[in-house]
């Protein structure tokens, strides 16, 4: 307990150093583009595949579970849309990113720590935390909400695909359901969640990497801790944001 509080303090102190003005704007922009590619663009394939499949599964599960003839078939589309936008495309996608991006960041920064590359920067007078971490937090927090949108659209398309393959309902019933009681606010809510989750993932895994010690084993350990801690933080933040925004 005492150790967790100390770590929390250390995390906030690190964030204070991260959020300072970069030494050189040009260098920051360069890193920002590199990290956008590494953290955001490179996540597109896995998120795309998972979204299509989950969209399809949600549609057939809902369709097979609606047995009562009193419930209109278009509810399948409605349910698929709501589960995708409310939880899957933000929270589940963020948990997947916590594994993929989180371990990537913490092992990258961690191996720079144990091979003294961070010392080399600090020794030159460079704010290494700012140089290494700020572009990662910034690019993921800014662009990942677009990943959420992409995941949403692909999930709906996955649903449409399985409908045309199996014919559990008709496409026009599906599309009627998708438009039923549509609230733009939910998309906004989900994008906000994704931005917060991305901040959590990038900052927490950077923290664990930055303070890695104990050789390559230590880097592995810090990477595991980063994933666990970001996942827990995502679930907590999900509760808080939902209470605040949907209440």
């Amino acid at each position, binding site marked *: 307990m005492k150790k967790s509080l100390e770590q929390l303090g250390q995390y906030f102190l690190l964030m204070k150093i991260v959020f300072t003005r970069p030494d050189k704007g040009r*260098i920051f922009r360069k890193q920002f583009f590199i990290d956008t590619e590494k953290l955001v663009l490179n996540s597109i394939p896995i998120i795309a595949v998972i979204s299509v499949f989950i969209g399809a599964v949600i549609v057939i599960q809902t369709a097979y579970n609606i047995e009562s003839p009193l419930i209109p078939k278009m509810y399948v589309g409605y349910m698929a849309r709501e589960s995708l936008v409310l939880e899957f495309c933000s929270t589940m996608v963020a948990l997947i990113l916590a594994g993929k991006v989180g371990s990537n960041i913490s092992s990258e920064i961690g191996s720079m720590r144990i*091979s*003294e590359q961070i010392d080399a920067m600090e*020794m*030159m*007078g*460079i*704010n290494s935390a700012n140089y290494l971490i700020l572009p990662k937090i910034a690019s993921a927090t800014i662009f990942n909400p677009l990943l959420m949108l992409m995941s949403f659209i692909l999930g709906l398309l996955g649903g449409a695909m399985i409908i045309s393959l199996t014919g559990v309902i008709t496409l026009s019933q599906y599309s009627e359901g998708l438009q039923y009681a549509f609230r733009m606010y939910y998309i906004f809510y989900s994008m906000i969640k994704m931005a917060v989750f991305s901040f959590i993932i990038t900052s927490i895994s950077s923290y664990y990497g930055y303070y890695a010690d104990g050789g390559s084993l230590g880097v592995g350990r810090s990477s595991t801790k980063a994933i666990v801690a970001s996942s827990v933080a995502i679930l907590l933040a999900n509760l808080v944001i939902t209470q605040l925004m949907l209440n």
Partner: protein
Amino acid sequence: MIQVKNLEKHFGDNHVLKNISIKYRPGECSLIIGASGSGKTVLLKSLVGLHEPDSGEIWYDKVKFSSLSFNEKKNIRKEIGMLFQGSALFDFATVEENVRFPMDFFTEWSESEKLERVNFCLNRVNLKNVNKLMPNELSGGMQKRVGIARAIALNPKYLFCDEPNSGLDPQTSILIDQLISEITKEYNITTVINTHDMNSVMEIGDRVGFIHKGELLWEGDKENVLTSDCEELNSFVFASRMAKKVKEMMG
């Protein structure tokens, strides 16, 4: 000149540096020798501010480095080059980008000026046609050379080397030692080198300090290293059977 006064450092209960006072002069290679774990790296990193000492003073010429803030230290740090034990080259960058790194941050030079300086530094450490290689494509000795090139990129007044020979074969070790020594004389740099290699001591040690369990037990020049009456130093210097034999032959 660098002056260290009564430096103390603990890690928890581990008393790593005990009341260290020493001076380092320009144009000289000052060696810190001692067994593994004796505190050499911690001393070196404390000198450049990578470890915060518990007490004591560190002076770079007229500036009291130990009481400056991170931002105030920047000005001194631009005049410091450091070669790390494992070279610590940035593995995300090419050789050229590694050497250019401090220039990108701390100069307003044009691209061509930077390239010229990069090539000058690489040339100085006898490296050619490696600009576009990644660090993991280089041998250990070449990595050390790039490390030195990066350390001298901004024409430092002070140079720190942590075990420049570790992991190198004896011949390459001597070449790296000589390179550091030449550069030190050529640019009148204040150079501090950690080592546990007695060959280096004999090759380039202008001044030698022996550190044992965090204490500076002996100081002198390389000739006297072999004839001191410091017991701990003797058992360090004459650790190997060959060294003992040489000592017997010397009488």
